[in-house]
């Protein structure tokens, strides 16, 4: 264990809150990530609880996005990127050679920084995942599922009458909620969000934040954010990264009111970042 890292034992132990659970839902142990010769993450030990919102915060370049993308192996797309250590979801090792990244990503969805709807209709955007995974046999089932997803994303009322219009004809905030609808359509267990509101105006941000809060009931959500206020508003747990290391993790309220580490204190008071 690295000295600066708050070990899971020192943080509020999930096992105490939920004695039946032997292992955290998502659990990283000694996770290192390298880009070529450069190490981006140093021995991350982090537990993420099921059906909670966990924020990853820290100054830019601290490795929070790298960690997020390590969870569904999006880093595999970068040829020089390498992962060491262990990362499990529900007890399954993500970096096991037997793992099929397609199966992994079908169950661990992702929402990106900039809204990126496909250049297809709104309906087709949401139906995309259902179609590629062969999840809905009949047309009416498909329509029901799309409607349900758009309702889950709080977008249904705004787009119900124009499902055949292109996804990028929507406003930025609507596009991002469309991307979330697209993700929840395939019923993932985990949703990863990489600064989902950074390209949105405050009103659109508020809507997406409300949505995230309502999704917590069904999904485990990990969100990277550069906004401490946002982390405070929407997440139950917060992890603070700095220079590729996990400095502190705990209940969001504790992190912001009573951080144990000086670096965390400096960050949330604006002295570093």
């Amino acid at each position: 264990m690295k000295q600066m890292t708050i070990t899971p034992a020192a943080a509020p132990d999930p096992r105490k809150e939920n004695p039946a659970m032997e292992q955290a839902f998502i659990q990283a142990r000694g996770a290192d990530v390298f880009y070529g010769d450069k190490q981006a993450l140093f021995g991350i030990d982090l537990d993420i609880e099921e059906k909670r919102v966990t924020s990853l915060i820290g100054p830019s370049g601290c490795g929070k996005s790298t960690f997020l993308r390590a969870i569904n192996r999006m880093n595999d797309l970068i040829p020089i990127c390498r992962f060491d250590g262990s990362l499990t979801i529900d007890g399954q090792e993500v970096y096991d050679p037997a793992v099929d990244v397609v199966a992994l990503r079908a169950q661990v969805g992702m929402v990106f920084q900039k809204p990126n709807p496909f250049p297809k209709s709104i309906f087709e955007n949401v139906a995309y995942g259902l179609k590629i995974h062969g999840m809905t046999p009949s047309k009416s089932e498909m329509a029901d599922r799309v409607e349900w997803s758009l309702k889950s994303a709080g977008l249904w009322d705004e787009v119900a009458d124009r499902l055949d219009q292109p996804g990028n004809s929507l406003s930025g905030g609507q596009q991002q909620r469309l991307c979330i609808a697209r993700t929840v359509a395939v019923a993932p267990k985990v949703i990863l969000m990489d600064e989902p509101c950074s390209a949105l105006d405050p009103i659109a941000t508020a809507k997406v934040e409300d949505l995230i809060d309502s999704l917590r009931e069904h999904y485990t959500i990990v969100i990277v954010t550069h906004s401490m206020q946002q982390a405070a508003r929407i997440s139950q747990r917060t992890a603070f990264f700095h220079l590729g290391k996990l400095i502190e993790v705990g209940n969001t309220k504790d992190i912001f009111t009573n951080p144990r580490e000086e670096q965390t204190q400096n960050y949330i008071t604006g002295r570093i970042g």
Partner: protein
Amino acid sequence: MINFTQDAGFGLRGRNKSEKRFQWAGRGAIAISLAFLVIMFFSIISTGLGALQQSQIAVTVDLSAEEVDPENVGDTSFNSLLKKSLRNAFPEVESRKDKKRLYGLVSTEAAFEIERQITQDPSLLGGPQTLWVTASDDADLYISGQVDTDLPEKQRRVSDAEIALLDKLMASGAARETFNKGFFTSGDSREPEIAGILSALMGSFLTLLVCFVLSFPLGIGAAIYLEEFAPKNRMSDLIEVNINNLAAVPSIVFGLLGLAIFLGYLGLPRSTPLVGGMVLALMTLPTIIIASRAALRSVPPSFKEAALALGATPVQAVFHHVVPVAMPGMLTGAIVGMAQALGETAPLLMIGMVAFIVDVPTSVLEPATALPVQIFLWADAPERAFTEKTAAAIIVLLTFLILMNLIAILLRRKLETRF
């Protein structure tokens, strides 16, 4: 329990298979294209190498004063002399038909070759001499082993009687294969065994010279203007669109332009490298302009700004500090353009550079042909031996193209390492 393996559902096994198929389709497509390239190169090179070898036949000619007047060599009929020595070599040949066949073993140029050898070395005169002369195209096919004797006689160009004669020559060491120097040192001919590419090469060189002299200054002038000085208005937009479209106009249309304007309206001499070069210059202009503009754009603007800040006029700044840096890039573009022009055939056909040219042209105003046109002409010729010549000419053409492209690549490398 979550399952992340291939067995997790989602139809993964089938999808992974189709992923593999998709990748193999890509590899297959590339392999097909490259295989075609290899087959084409192999077929042309293996056909053309034969033309670099030439068969010769040794004849013993009586050059005593009786036959050849040393004072007046030109008066001798070397043709009958040659026939006589052939008859002497094969006394068994008697019928008229067989004699004709015997004479056909050597090239129709063989008599001139004997004369030429005597002019070059008068000491040969005075007695019988054994001289090597070029074999005819059919004899060459047999000597170089390209005749399939298993075929029935009617299906091959060399008859059994000829084969008997040639076998005797080969057995006595009177037939040999040598490097075909004549291919590079003589002009076109109706006789495949002595046809060479020098006239076509020279024609191509003169044409490219005219093309370069016209298109390079025009091209870089236009590029510098458009990139550095042209106001952004409808006129410069029009020129821009124009250049892009010109680059895609079929080459034969440029030939029609040359025919109607350079030959018809301006009355310039037909079939000449001058007109050919002018037509090719118009064709390569877009290539040079587009490449030169890219080269100019890659020069950091700070170079020009620094000069301007020191009080240079825009023209000075551009010519002293931007153009020299962009020069290798512009030259690269010009070489690529010239390589294109070297391979161009269709427009030259339009302005009459398809003439049968034996003499090597020495000026841009003499009728000439060009290497690719020569290839086209030979490819059309019925004699089997011209096929070999065609392939050999293609090898020469490709060699020049490869050299030009290599120079362009080296120049580009030099440019890239500069910043």
